[in-house]
């Protein structure tokens, strides 16, 4: 089942483009990464899905229901954590979370129990005033308010800012646990490392358009690989000339490194003719893949 499906979703802010003809399908139970630099259209997509802004054209469904017609019904099962969290400063954390919980049909006792569990897990003092919290602790409030009603879909828009590495790890563990229960996660970020750690599939967005959707594994496999050869003697550059798919070639006295994209047998034939002392073949990380699409 598709949890999120957009068809030619387009949003213009006046004459300025936000997103154009966005076709995106997110399946039930997957952790879907949404990557792109600031201004690429990630937040516009998310805000449109949440009904905070209206599409200029195109359509989108969540849980098979139109996002505009069934907005409130859909949001019953969505947990949202924005990149920057803002709450009512004069409220106590517990009051804000209870207020947040009061919007959902779930039993208030179950929600209260869930608030206490999550607060304990994230080490958050519920009695403090929002105004007295550090940014990281406000982010924890954001995480709890996004998860307290046990949503079926969690939408995260650059969620880790302000969280220390330990808390980031706990947060990721929490997301993985939710995912194991069948929860679908849309994880938008420009921090590629965290997307790589967490996500199954990823969409790369550039200038408001999706330019690639694939599994992280497939992206890594089908793009270039980095070869690092340690050699007994200096290798002549001419050995690599004329071979398709080689780039970023660097030769020193005892090493050769290059990026390769193509048929693996072609390159292994060349390597076999070199007197090697060691060889490394590395999958590119998401950052390298990302740069490949962006530069």
């Amino acid at each position, binding site marked *: 089942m598709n949890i999120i499906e957009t068809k030619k979703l387009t949003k213009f*802010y006046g004459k300025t483009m936000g997103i154009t003809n966005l076709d995106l399908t997110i399946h039930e139970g997957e952790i879907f990464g949404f990557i792109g630099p600031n201004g690429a259209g990630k*937040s516009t997509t998310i*805000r449109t899905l*949440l*009904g*905070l*802004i*209206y599409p200029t054209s195109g359509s989108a469904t969540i849980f098979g229901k139109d996002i505009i017609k069934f*907005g*409130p*019904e*859909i*949001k*019953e099962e*969505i947990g*949202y954590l*924005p990149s*920057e*969290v*803002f*709450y*009512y*400063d*004069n409220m106590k954390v517990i009051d804000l979370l209870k*207020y*947040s919980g*009061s*919007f*959902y049909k779930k039993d208030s006792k179950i929600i209260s129990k869930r608030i206490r569990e999550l607060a304990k897990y994230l080490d958050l003092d519920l009695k403090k005033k929002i105004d007295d919290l550090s940014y990281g602790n406000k982010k924890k409030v954001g995480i709890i*308010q996004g998860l307290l009603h046990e949503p079926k879909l969690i939408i995260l828009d650059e969620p880790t800012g302000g969280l220390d590495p330990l808390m980031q790890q706990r947060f990721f563990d929490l997301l993985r646990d939710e995912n194991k229960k069948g929860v679908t996660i849309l994880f938008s970020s420009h921090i590629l490392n965290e997307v790589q750690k967490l996500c199954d599939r990823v969409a790369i967005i550039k200038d408001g358009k999706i330019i690639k959707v694939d599994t992280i594994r497939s992206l890594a496999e089908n793009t270039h690989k980095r070869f690092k050869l340690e050699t007994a003697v200096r290798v002549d550059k001419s050995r690599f000339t004329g071979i398709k798919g080689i780039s970023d070639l660097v030769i020193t006295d005892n090493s050769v490194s290059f990026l390769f994209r193509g048929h693996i047998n072609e390159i292994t034939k060349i390597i076999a003719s070199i007197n090697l002392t060691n060889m490394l073949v590395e999958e590119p990380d998401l950052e390298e893949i990302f740069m490949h699409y962006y530069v």
Partner: protein
Amino acid sequence: MNIFWQELRFYRRTTIIWMVAFAVGIFCYMSMFTAFSHDVSQSMKLLQGFPPAVRAALGIRIESFFTILGFFGYMLTYLWLIGGIQAMNLGTGILSKEISGKTADFLLSKPISRFKVITSKLAAALVIIFLTNIVFVASSYFSAMTFKTKDFDTNIFALTCLTMLFVQLFFLSLGFLISVLVPKIKSVLAFSLPIVFGFFIIGMLDTIIGAENARYLTPFKYFDVGYIATHSAYELRFILTEVVFVFFCIIASYVIYIRKDIQAPA
């Protein structure tokens, strides 16, 4: 209903301050009636010293100033001004604070329609205005009863007091409309004060100029205390003007709010 109750909690302290200010202010002012009515001829001489245009602009009617209703009616113009500021602040702030406080994303990502959000907020604002008016009427009546020198017509007094509700509804609905039209209101007071004072000044100028049709321009001129005292009623044409204005503002606010994009907090 959760938004409704939450808004009442948010505005609890401010509303109490407004109510106390009204009650204390009215009581203090009305307490001066004893002094004015003690020596009518002396006080009358003092008021007659003012040029007629100034008296008209300030709303002083010598013929009724020395009755408790007339004395109260004189101050009413200024109470409307204060009440207008309260209502305008409330109308402008209750929706726009979600944008200026950057909490709109929190609220509107919850499973609730924008129609319900705006209705809950409007309902809360109306309750605050009604509660303020109950205190206003009660404290006015108590003060009048305490400092009266003769009996007065309570029906006319009640009608006179209720004008505050109409003036506040005018500014509440105007504030509501402004809050959805202006993308981001950083300071509610900086918006509401000039607007309310603007209407007040139009009212003062209208009194000096004496153009009858200009009365439609400002709610401060919709209610003539002299007319109410004579007819025991409001002027229907201005009540209709107000009703049309209030409905227009509220309906337009709903339409705009439901359709508008909520921009990301910057």
